[in-house]
């Protein structure tokens, strides 16, 4: 049982709990961030190989050694893309939280329940 997978699942469940239960808008954003980081950790640890080396071709590690002993670099590229998307969404959520604070002088989410039906 790999330690990475256990930690990733713990992070996903903590993030989900924080997103659903907390009432402050900034804490909801932090919960969403922890959820996304848990998924990224899961994705990177998917490419692990036992006793592997970093997938960089240097003078001591020619391409053949990297091909047989290196960890998988594709999930790392996927996670890099996903981190960029996550930065954009977090920036937008925090800007809207600034607007919310300017309007209501408080960040409690019971004001969001006003739109019903």
């Amino acid at each position, binding site marked *: 049982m790999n330690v990475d997978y256990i930690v990733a699942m713990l992070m996903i469940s903590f993030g989900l709990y924080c997103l659903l239960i907390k009432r402050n808008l900034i804490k909801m954003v932090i919960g969403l961030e922890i959820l996304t980081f848990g998924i990224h950790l899961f994705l990177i640890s998917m490419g692990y190989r036992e006793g592997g080396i970093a997938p*960089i*071709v240097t*003078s001591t590690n020619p391409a053949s050694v990297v091909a047989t002993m290196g960890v998988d670099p594709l999930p790392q590229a996927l996670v*890099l893309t996903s*981190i*960029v998307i996550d930065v954009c969404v977090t*920036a937008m959520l*925090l*800007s809207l939280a*600034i607007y919310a604070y*300017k309007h209501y002088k408080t960040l409690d989410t019971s004001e969001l329940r006003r739109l019903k039906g």
Partner: protein
Amino acid sequence: MAGMTLIVKTASRLLSPFVLLFGIYIVLHGHLTPGGGFPGGVIIVAAIVMLLLGYGAEAAKAKFSPLQASVSENIGSLILVATGLLGLFLGFNFMKNAIPLGTTGNLYSAGIIIPLNIGVGIKVAAGLAVILYAMLTAFEEEEK
């Protein structure tokens, strides 16, 4: 927002050019070392943020105004798309590596990866600068 104490001002003034240089190094060596466009762009914008936090919004805007940031952001993305269209004009498919590849391990090698990294680095730095300017000056209209 106003600036900070004298120690922070001196430290940010002395360190900011070196951080900028380090960011440019990471962007340019994207095909040889870990890093590339996105982390390099974030480090470049850290140099501007050091000035913004240390000296206040007006001093940082005098050095790198929001209009310049907005225009550079679009120019960065246009470099990215134009590099892809270069392969289209030379007769192959989109984003084909048609520039001569050098030997592996040199700085000048790996075809179109260098212009792609530069385009992404400029776009990320300018984009994050626009976001940070907008967020850090959001409460100033209230105080006036």
